[in-house]
């Protein structure tokens, strides 16, 4: 399946993300999920970004709301707009999971 996963928190209370598999996986970081794209906790990338084979996206509005800019975003992650997220949902992936 082609699955777009939304993450909206810095600290997760589920482990579904670690277990779910998809042939094509998109991970869209929104709200407080955007911190995974910019923080280096203990000098390291967020473990969220180590999911093999996934494509990572971060919502630019939610980054800027929190005082961060595209320049600070991890190179694994693509900065996107609301319109881009619509295209990801409607064209690139078949289903979504807000974890």
């Amino acid at each position, binding site marked *: 399946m082609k699955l777009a996963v*939304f993450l*909206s*928190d810095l600290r997760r*209370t589920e482990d579904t993300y670690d277990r779910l598999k998809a042939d094509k996986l998109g991970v869209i970081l*929104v*709200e*407080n999920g955007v911190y995974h794209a910019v923080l280096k906790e203990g000098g390291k990338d967020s473990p969220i970004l180590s999911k093999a084979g996934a494509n990572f996206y971060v919502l630019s*509005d*939610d980054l800027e*709301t929190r005082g961060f800019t595209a320049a600070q975003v991890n190179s694994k992650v693509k900065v996107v*707009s*609301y*319109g881009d*997220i*619509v*295209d990801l*949902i*409607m064209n690139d992936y078949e*289903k*979504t999971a*807000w*974890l």
Partner: protein
Amino acid sequence: MGVFTMGVFPSLVGSGTLDFSFKLAEAALAKGHTVNMWLSGNAVMMAKKGQRAFKDYSHLEKKMMELVGKGMAITVCEACAEARGYHKEDTPEGMKRASMDWYLAKTFKSDRVLHIGGE
């Protein structure tokens, strides 16, 4: 162009999730998609007329009416609203109340569903 249905559950005054949902709906409408929105659980707060606008809180009633004007179907969970003391007469114009089967039936007719659950 496709049919996109969003189910919005955990949102509240002062939370970013409702803002996110309305901005995403707006972007989907702008691209020509058909958009349905189901507000349930705490997100039924949108069903209350007379919310006072403070700069400290996002105030979405105007945005909601704009999106309804652009053709978005927006329905709130009737039981969830009643439990919170939001009655029929509190519901802003253009917004419907229904039971949960409305949402499930909409998912049947949708190309994509984004169900925003969580806490």
